């Protein structure tokens, strides 16, 4: 039989991929989340999550880490992105590359290097676990914040800035009323790309000797203890949080289709 490369046939590998790696795991996740160890339907996993001070504490700690990381990424990234996007420097693509360059190095190597530096400064990393985790994550995620903001500002029509000045707005007003609002889609993308991963990226915490759990390590600890049902419920709730977060940020972006969205 000859194989015809119609659109339908060409789609088969992707459908298989989606079925095996997305749909199936999701179904398995749902199954475990709403059953107990002997396979009977139950909601105890859900109620456990919201009654167990451990899980709730971890959730808040994760939020705190993620929010702080995002905050620092944003205040570091925006000025960099702004000045690079608006400067007439010929070397600006090189500078952008310098910021992106660390991403080409394996992230565990990067964090190991950071660990050594922080140890040199602080003597013992155990003194400031929260701060160190935030430093590690900020270092890790900074390029993901810079790039979308840079793209958003760079794509701004220079005529809009000129129009604002023409209409009597000084540099500050032009920035506040034109550049900043029009770069918000890029900021939203950046936040989404930093906030969500930093809720679960427990490897950074591990490597910087922060023994507090965040969502990622919590799930992993449940699974390590063979509590597949509890772990799945936490994963499901995390997934839900991510979905809501993504929906919130993307609906705002719809207005500006050529912003700097990466999502």
């Amino acid at each position, binding site marked *: 039989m000859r194989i015809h490369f119609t659109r339908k046939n060409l789609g088969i590998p992707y459908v298989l991929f989606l079925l095996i790696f997305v749909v199936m795991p999701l179904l398995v996740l749902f199954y475990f989340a709403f059953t107990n160890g002997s396979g009977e339907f139950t909601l105890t996993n859900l109620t456990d999550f919201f009654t167990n001070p451990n899980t709730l504490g971890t959730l808040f700690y994760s939020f705190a880490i993620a929010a702080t990381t995002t905050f620092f990424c944003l205040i570091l990234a925006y000025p960099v992105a702004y000045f690079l996007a608006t400067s007439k420097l010929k070397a600006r693509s090189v500078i952008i590359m310098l910021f992106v360059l660390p991403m080409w190095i394996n992230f565990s190597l990067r964090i190991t290097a950071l660990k050594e530096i922080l140890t040199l400064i602080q003597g013992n990393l155990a003194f400031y676990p929260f701060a160190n985790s935030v430093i590690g994550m900020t270092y890790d995620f900074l390029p993901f914040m810079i790039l979308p903001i840079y793209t958003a500002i760079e794509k701004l*029509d220079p005529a809009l800035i000129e129009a*604002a000045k023409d*209409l009597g707005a*000084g540099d500050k007003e032009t920035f506040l009323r034109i550049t900043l609002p029009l770069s918000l889609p890029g900021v939203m993308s950046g936040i989404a790309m930093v906030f969500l991963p930093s809720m679960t990226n427990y490897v950074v915490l591990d490597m910087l000797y922060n023994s507090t759990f965040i969502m990622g390590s919590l799930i992993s600890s449940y699974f390590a203890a063979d509590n597949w049902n509890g772990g799945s419920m936490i994963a499901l709730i995390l997934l839900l949080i991510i979905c809501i977060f993504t929906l919130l940020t993307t609906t705002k972006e719809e207005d500006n289709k050529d912003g700097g969205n990466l999502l």
Partner: protein
Amino acid sequence: MENTNIIELKNVTKRFEDDGFVAVEDFNLEVKRGEFVTFLGPSGCGKTTTLRMIAGFDLPTHGEILLNGKSITKLPPYDRPINTVFQRYALFPHMNIYENIAFGLKQKKMPKDVIARKVKRVLTLVDLEGFEERSIDTLSGGQQQRIAIARALVNEPEILLLDEPLGALDLKMRKEMQVELKNMHKKLGITFIYVTHDQEEALTMSDKIVVMNEGKIQQIGTPEDIYNEPVNVFVADFIGESNIFSGIMTKKLKARFCGGEFDCVDDILEGMHVSAVIRPEDVEITKPEEGTIKGVVSSVVFQGIHYEIAIQSGKNEMIVYSTEHIEVGEKVGMKIKPESIHVVIAEDHTNHFQVDINSDYRLEYNNKVLDTSLTKLFKDSKRLSDGTVIDASGEKIDLERAKIHASIQPQDIKMTDNVDEGLIEGKISNLIYQGSYYLYVIHTELEHDFAVYDEYLWNMHDRVGLIMPVDKMSFTIKKSK
């Protein structure tokens, strides 16, 4: 003394730092309050840069810009009582129409009710009442254009700058907006400075036109002046359709061009090399024996109001607009009133002439083949096996309908006593000593005058052959309509 000039540009020059390109050179202009001034020129002529310097987006390298007699040369755009309508409107996409228009007024910290009233009034002016809450992307191009105008006008600027504001609109819309802009100008009395490359737009709308080319002002004048009395060949060629011939002043108020001697009204020194500019509507077609020159009709194209008739007279082609239809091939005469012949002194003595393409697709002049290949004339063109020539983009060059214009500098032509040696034979009809060489005018058998520089003295009325090396000629193709 009351100073009625609202804005003056004095010796303004703009050189861009990064590449040293001089966009505007020694620009001097005075604009009176309430005038509608248009900067007209081909793209890259510096008209937009000049406008940007008036707006304050670019700073002049040299020179001064005075507003009401006071220098605003270094003032930032937000401190100038001048507003701009941008080429692609530059409306703020994150604001609705009300917010866009109110932007400038909010900057001036006006009370909310005043802003609301002004916005409403200006929306009425641009015929978009009730559009306050609409978002920008629900508007058509023409409506966005009106909002852009409204956004600038609501600030009651002393000068409104318009940078090719109608360029993005379709023809019908453009015509309507031209009329509306003109009406707005009349109604408001604000000074308009308008930039366009569309000569028709400039002619219909302006009180004063500034024709620019390569960063320099070519001519400043009313539309009538510019059209009827162009000061040089560039202006004549750029504004409207014209026949331009190189020629020579044979006597006082007599010019020879296009194979005939014409009376004219421009008093230019005898023997001067000149360019004669004749508008197609100024040529009167007569019976062959009644015309100053004779010719054969080579094409007739109906253009709605008139026929565009091409008449071949010797080696020259005259374009004539006439309401009467004439058959192709008919022999006609042509007469031109002296006051319709506009003669300007030629800036240089470059010889322009038309060459033919023969059946072997080779160039010919005076029935002599020029030793050059057609493919050399057009960059990256190729000759296919069937003899057709395609250009760089792969499009076929229609050689049947193409006209090839050749030009050669007077110092590149050699005269010879051996008349057969030259590409063409002619008689020396004029000579002028130029200090270190003589300028000769050779009147050829084909009724064309060639200018030749030679350091040796030849006699008047000598018959000479003109040797014109092909590698010194440059060729341009003119596709006929």
